[in-house]
């Protein structure tokens, strides 16, 4: 029997037992964030890079998280390759990590990625020694180009950031999974546990969740649901679903029925 525990997620040179990347924003308060992240089992936690407040100090989100997690700085809020590259470089300096979740947003309304700027920034950051995890559209061609420039994973969206609409195009995610050798992390759009199960059943390697947990009525309970969804979906993928048929197929023997 295969061991569910011996099924690590590997991104670049790091392995993780959890297949969840979790955000540190959108929680009602810091304690809820810490409790939910703990309950989710996630080992990778994303943080934003922001200007300090010049009117006082205060502890950073990192002081609260402690040293228990792989911290993944993002470039959220950047609209140009130039700003995203500098934000990544500032994140590297602040956190002493070469990893970056690269986001280049194209539009305030949809928060869809700007693919042109994304590819430019990805290429520049890879050249600069970064391990780049790019948030992209669910377009297999874009994902292939991101792989070609040397990204460490692809992170296609399920639906717009924070929309909670789940996976709008599971067929594309399947194609992306089939075409790339990189880990596929479904980023954005997760609304609840069933979205996570579907992502895993499609063969995706991991899921990024932020609003789905932080904005849930009870973030800690939702974090637990998502942890179980990852496990259920991944096991279902590995177990292999039966083919769909148009007609029924009995699961009890046809012979030996009384009265025949």
């Amino acid at each position, binding site marked *: 029997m295969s061991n569910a525990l011996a099924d690590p997620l590997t991104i670049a040179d790091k392995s993780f037992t959890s297949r969840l990347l979790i*955000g*540190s*924003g*959108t*929680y009602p308060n*810091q304690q809820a*964030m810490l409790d939910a992240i703990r309950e989710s089992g996630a080992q990778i936690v*994303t*943080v*934003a*890079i*922001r*200007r*300090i407040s*010049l009117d006082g*100090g205060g502890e*950073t*989100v*990192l*002081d609260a998280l402690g040293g228990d997690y792989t*911290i993944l*700085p*993002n470039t*959220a809020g950047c609209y140009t390759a*130039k700003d995203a590259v*500098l*934000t990544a*470089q*500032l*994140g*590297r*300096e*602040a*956190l002493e990590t070469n990893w970056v979740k690269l986001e280049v947003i194209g539009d305030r309304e949809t928060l869809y990625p700007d693919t042109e700027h994304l590819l430019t920034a990805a290429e520049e950051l890879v050249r600069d020694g970064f391990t780049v995890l790019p948030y992209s559209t669910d377009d297999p061609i874009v994902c292939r180009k991101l792989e070609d420039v040397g990204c460490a994973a692809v992170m296609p969206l399920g639906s717009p*950031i*924070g929309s909670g609409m789940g996976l709008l195009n599971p067929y594309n995610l399947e194609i992306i999974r089939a075409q790339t050798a990189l880990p596929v992390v479904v980023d954005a759009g997760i609304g609840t546990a069933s979205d996570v199960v579907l992502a895993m059943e499609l063969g995706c390697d991991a899921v*990024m969740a*932020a*609003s789905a947990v*932080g904005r849930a009525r009870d973030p800690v309970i939702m974090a637990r649901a998502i942890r179980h969804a990852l496990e259920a979906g991944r096991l279902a993928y590995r177990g292999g679903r039966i083919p769909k048929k148009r007609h029924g197929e009995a699961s009890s023997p046809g012979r030996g029925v009384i009265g025949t």
Partner: protein
Amino acid sequence: MGDSISVNGIERPLTDKTVGELLATENVDLDARFLAVAVNGAVVPRAEWNAAPVAADDDVEIVRPAPGG
């Protein structure tokens, strides 16, 4: 009008000669972890703060990690 400098998007008079002096003027704890500074779009490593110059019309960014998705 004297020389000015932009710090996190806010224009103010230039009173400092180095990044280290500027951070002190802004009451930033130079020993605080997780800080990063860029001048005119280039990161200034922490080890260089005390020597790296700032000049009129420079654009300084001082950042740290914040909660985010």
